[in-house]
């Protein structure tokens, strides 16, 4: 009875024809697989080994440095003159130099970058976007030494017209060009974060009678906040580590002045100064290089950890 109703079922219950007999056992060691896997693994180990080597080198040289100079003097001293007599090893002027350049750059790059990102993702037409995006990428691709030169030959002269008493090398000019330099990073990363927010959320908000501005500020930016914050922190990290432009624009004068009109020296510019080769290797002056580099590394690491914590806390998951 059942077979009459479902003729296919009768067919299906017949045993399938046996296929050509072929074992499914391994036919031997797969040497090609093994070689490729080993090669890929060794490539990825290169970065681990390099990182470990750098950290070990930095730490060991830094420990040597602290045999000659007390940590107390290094961390709390306010005079940095390691290269000439009487030598003094207070790193605070370098940290201060880095700090004001970074803060200045962040004040420029974060609001402008976020505003650009909001414009690009929420307001710009596709045509506008197709013009602005490549220009931003171009801005990001300019070598940093060009930014330094730009600061020295364009930004500083302009600033001197406005503030006649500004020095040739000054922190303000450096902060401005570093701000311009990291702006594309904030804009592009934030734009990506905002565009990743599902269209359905925007539609839901518009359907409740929200204006574009309300949709953007109350729904889209909060939903994309983790990516936006990440872009800020990466930009700050990048500004702290920025070397060439700052060295050219801000000069080489360790200084704790509150004004941005004077020459300062950042941690990175100091490393450039010593690396240029006038300092004999092996001495305490040379070891300062590693102490400053370790400090720089530690600061960046701490920022990255903080950024991770902020990301986890502020994250608004939308799926």
């Amino acid at each position: 009875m059942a077979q009459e109703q479902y003729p296919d079922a009768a067919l299906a219950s017949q045993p399938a024809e046996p296929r050509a007999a072929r074992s499914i056992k391994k036919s031997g060691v797969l040497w090609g697989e093994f070689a490729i896997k080993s090669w890929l693994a060794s490539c990825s180990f290169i970065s681990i080994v390099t990182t470990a080597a750098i950290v070990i080198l930095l730490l060991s040289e830094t420990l040597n440095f602290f045999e000659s100079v007390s940590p107390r003097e290094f961390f709390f001293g306010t005079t940095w003159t390691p290269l000439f007599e009487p030598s003094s090893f207070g790193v605070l002027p370098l940290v201060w130099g880095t700090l004001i350049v970074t803060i200045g750059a962040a004040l420029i790059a974060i609001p402008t970058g976020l505003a650009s990102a909001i414009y690009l993702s929420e307001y710009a037409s596709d045509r506008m976007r197709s013009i602005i995006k490549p220009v931003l990428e171009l801005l990001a691709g300019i070598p940093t030494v060009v930014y330094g030169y730009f600061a020295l030959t364009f930004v500083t002269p302009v600033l001197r017209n406005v503030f006649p008493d500004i020095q040739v090398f000054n922190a303000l000019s450096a902060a401005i060009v570093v701000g311009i330099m990291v702006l594309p990073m904030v804009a592009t990363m934030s734009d990506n974060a905002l565009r990743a927010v599902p269209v359905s959320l925007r539609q839901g908000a518009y359907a409740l009678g929200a204006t574009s501005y309300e949709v953007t500020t109350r729904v889209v930016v909060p939903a994309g906040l983790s990516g936006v914050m990440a872009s800020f922190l990466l930009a700050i990290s990048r500004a702290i580590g920025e070397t060439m432009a700052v060295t050219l624009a801000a000069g080489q004068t360790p200084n704790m002045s509150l004004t941005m009109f004077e020459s300062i020296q950042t941690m990175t510019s100091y490393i450039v100064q010593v690396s240029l080769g006038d300092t004999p290797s092996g001495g305490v002056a040379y070891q300062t290089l590693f102490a400053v580099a370790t400090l720089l590394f530690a600061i960046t690491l701490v920022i990255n950890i903080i950024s991770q914590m902020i990301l986890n806390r502020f994250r608004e998951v939308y799926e």
Partner: protein
Amino acid sequence: MSQFPDSTLAEQNLQMSKKSVLELRNVNIFYSDNQAVNDVSFNIRRNKITAIIGPSGCGKSTLLRSLNRMNDFVDGARVEGELIFGNENLYGKEVDAVEVRRRIGMVFQKPNPFPKSIYNNISWGPLINGFNGSTDELVERSLKQAALWEEVKDRLHESALNLSGGQQQRLCIARALAMEPEVLLMDEPCSALDPISTARIEDLLFELKSSYTIVIVTHNMQQAARISDYTAFMEMGDLIEFNVTKKIFTRPAMKRTEEYVTGRFG
């Protein structure tokens, strides 16, 4: 096409203007060069459920989205003809699209709660639009209207994303109701839901009918037959037939309608 064969045109118009919330007159909708909706005219009655049915790509969602200007966000979308809402054309030059959406709410195919708490999902719309009453009462009332209150009253400040799909969709309905819209548009609101959640939402629509006008797009003909008072059948951008639901499903005037509702195509 004859919508009301029993009455004269003049009578129809008179009757409709009293009972209708929205009047569609010769509506054409284009996406760039493609025409998605061709010369559609019908009226949406107050405190009734109007269903728009038809095969995929027939223009029913496009038509629905034109009713609260959600097509404004689609590049190249253009609406011609008149959509009369309270004596004004929705697409008139001086019309504020934001105000239109305050008065004509929408629930989408896929639940799209904001990544905020249940409470803030409800209060968000009214607050940005200047609501200054008690948000506690508003949230409770809206959730009760959407038959969600009992399930969530103890966790109003938890993320809306922890709710099930059916609960999220009812939250989206509650969110739309909190704005007290004159018309509620629903774009296949049950297509992403299981049968039990679907049944709950259908029950809910019955209850909402007394205070709201609902237009629902649905793929599911049984659903249209169960819940709606009027049905518009569309195919290839044309309105094939518009009538009371009972007629559409029992004695349709058009052969095409009959074929569709009896499941012969679509």
